């Protein structure tokens, strides 16, 4: 092959290569636009779901249907004067600050006490219930306004978990379990979703935090069965579909530790129990 032919061929190949790259870039831009649309949809949906519910409870996972299943429900109360939630200083990231005009909603979520002394964000679970299978519906963690929604939740072993970033700023999801494998992943773009799961039982909740925004923290426990609930703003919790038996019920709070109660439930019984944490 003569040099001239060779050089011409190479120029032609380079041209094709450049064109191919250019096309790839266009395609990438289109994908990006598509993603943005999706992100917008996700953001809207999340806004609807979470409006007015700063500490949303985990929806109870689908428990196996038992013919004579009982339901365990009750209230968690806070005894004493409710502490005033501390304001979170978000000025380190102007985006986060802009999501909370006048500091609205930028308060610490560690202790949330309702008007009648109801305590939210308490994980109530059955310690010695039979194992169950993981639901296919994913549990979600949303990052919105530089906060986690929900603040406390439990999942079943191997249940899919979807972690979304609804903010137009970089968050990193740093899960710090003691038994399961840790992960630490960034989500730089609004609308990004990370899919995770934990494959070992870890009943003591562990922290999930953002290292960029030090105030962002959330708690998660990994259960062998779906018999758990998190107290809502009104302090209420409910564990349905529980097979009859005698159980140890545990209530866990991130600041005030945990309490246990022995409970026996009969067939189709709806049992009420109560927990009270002291400040």
């Amino acid at each position: 092959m003569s040099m001239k032919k060779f050089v011409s061929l190479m120029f032609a190949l380079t041209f094709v290569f450049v064109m191919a790259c250019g096309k790839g870039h266009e395609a990438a831009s289109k994908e990006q636009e598509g993603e943005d649309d999706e992100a917008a949809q996700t953001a809207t949906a999340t806004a609807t779901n979470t409006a007015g519910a700063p500490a949303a409870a985990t929806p109870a996972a689908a428990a196996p249907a038992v013919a004579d299943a009982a339901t365990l429900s009750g209230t968690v109360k806070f005894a004493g004067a409710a502490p005033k939630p501390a304001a979170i200083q978000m000025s380190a990231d102007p985006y986060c600050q802009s999501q909370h005009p006048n500091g609205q909603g930028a308060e610490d979520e560690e202790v949330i006490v309702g008007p009648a002394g109801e305590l939210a964000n308490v994980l109530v679970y059955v310690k010695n219930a039979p194992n169950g299978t993981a639901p296919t519906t994913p549990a979600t963690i949303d990052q919105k306004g530089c906060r986690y929604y929900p603040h406390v939740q439990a999942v079943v072993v191997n249940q899919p978990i979807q972690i979304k970033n609804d903010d137009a700023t970089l968050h990193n999801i740093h899960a710090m379990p003691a038994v399961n494998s840790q992960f630490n992943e960034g989500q730089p773009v609004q609308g990004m979703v990370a899919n995770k799961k934990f494959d070992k039982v870890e009943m003591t909740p562990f922290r999930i935090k953002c290292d960029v925004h030090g105030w962002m923290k959330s708690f998660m426990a990994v259960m062998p069965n779906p018999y758990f609930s998190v107290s809502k703003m009104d302090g209420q919790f409910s564990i349905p579909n529980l097979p009859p038996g005698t159980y140890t019920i545990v209530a866990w709070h991130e600041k005030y530790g945990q309490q246990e109660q022995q409970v026996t439930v009969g067939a189709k019984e709806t049992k009420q129990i109560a927990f009270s944490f002291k400040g």
Partner: protein
Amino acid sequence: MAPKRQLRVGKEWMNAGDAEKLLREAMRIQEEEDARHEGHKQSFIRKYVFSIDHKWIGIQYGFTALCFLLFGFSLMLLMRLQLGWPGHAFSIMKLLGESRAPGGVLLPEAYNQLGAMHGTIMVFLAIVPLAVGAFGNYLVPLMIGAPDMAFPRLNMASYWMYLPGGVVMLASFAATGGTAQSGWTSYPPLSDIATEGQTWWLIGMIFLITSSLLGSVNFIVTIIQLRAKGMTWMRLPFFVWAQFVTSFLLLLAFPPLEAAGVLQLMDRVARTSFFLPSGLVVSGTKLAVAGGGNPLLWQHLFWFLAHPEVYVLILPAMGIIGEIIANNTRKPLWGYKSLVGAVGFLGFMSFVVWAHHMFMTGMGTVISAFFQTTTMIISIPSVIILTALLMSLWGGSIRFNVPMLFALAFLPMFGIGGLTGLPLGLAATDIHLHDTYYVIGHFHYVVAPGTIFAMFAGIYYWFPKITGKKMNEFLGKVHFWGSFVAINGIFMPMFAQGLAGVSRRLYDGGIQYHHAKEIAAATNPFMSMSAWALFAFQIPFILNFFWSIAFGKKAEANFWHATTLEWAATTSPPLGHGNFAVIPVVQRGPYEYSSPEYPETDYLPQHHVIGAPPATAGGGMLTAAAVAQREA
């Protein structure tokens, strides 16, 4: 028509072409005899895989290192896409996999991985093996008139430690949590608590360090013991001096890092705390380790290697540039003795400047003052070398061929790299500039348009020696001019960014930071486009390289009309076994160009005896006569 060159073979004169044929025949007979002598013919594996011939090991090093150079460069190309257009989805990013770039958007931890591995691969797997392993291995024995390295099997072991080191580094990309992401410096405590990839990085480093140590011992012994008769110290080509000093740097600087690497490995796998202090809190949780260690210890051990390592990167480059400048100005190197003295002093001083990388660690003013002083002192030999190389151009009849273009570009580029280092060597200015893009600009000017350009110069220069073929000049010039413009487009704006205080470790290039966003937005896309342009301009080189190997025109033995033994005293490519048919006897210094003693040609080879048949016949011709005599 030019008269045919005549050579005397035995008692008869014959033309150069016939003498070459005779020589080839003699080589074939000699190889057969050697094979009979050893009782077996060399197997493919022995000859091409586990070879003990320094030339083939040099080629192995060179090819592997060039592959790593391209790989390390491609990691940077991905980083530059992210820096230029942060958070955008790029189809090419999907190559990294869903866990690193979901939907083509590079994740921050994957960016850190690319950064750490770009540095590691470029320094330890690409440039050092290319500069020392490839050029050093191939050329040093030829230049000093040695039949091989002093320890051929050690030489083979050196390559076969290097390759697994590289494979381990590549394999670390598949580790849980990805490859190492704590920077090429691997500072603890971050690296001590990093994901699994860091362990692989450390194991890889231990292989690479061992490889360098084996190589350096071999070079030192070879240069001391195997110089041909008459090759006195002051007749050594400057390149050999540069390799000699480099070998001492490798030999003395790497062991502390090897020790440090083992200690860090113990911290990670045996739960020791050499580099972990007591009471360390990570992400709000106290780390459950024994503690009592000191992260600064690592920094000292690392920089005790890594500063001499900078000179390991630059000295062979200077050696290459020296050879090419002397050859293409057709005059002796200016100030050869000063150059040799400067290289030796540079090597010595490089061991007492390391803590200028650590002014921000809060060391006392006395220690700071010491390291500032030594840093200012070390700039003197560097300036001597650069000045001598520049002075060598004065009054030369310069041939602007491709290797010379790269060599000429090296001078101002290394000058910029060196001079911008001075403010970093002074604590007062370093406090502002530390960890900014200014530092990246500084050392890349030294290493990229500095050392890598010198490597390209060396490849273009010695390609006819190694392959016996010519490279295409036009493609070479396209490669040079494109690379020269593009590479400045990448690194020059870094000085402006650094002075504006843009940190070097930002995943988004600074776009989220109030003080950095303006300059980041103004410069980063341009720099990234320059990086991709630089990639485009490597294509002519890659094509030229392979095309010339396959279809290049045959080059005469002493293609550049050089004086040093590798060109003048053997064929191109050199003889397979023993390099020289007869070991040459050296008569004079290495750069006798345009010598008034020898008006016949403008170059007087080191081994040529005045009065013997003309040296224009090129490499091998004189030895051809000797071979023919021996055969008779």
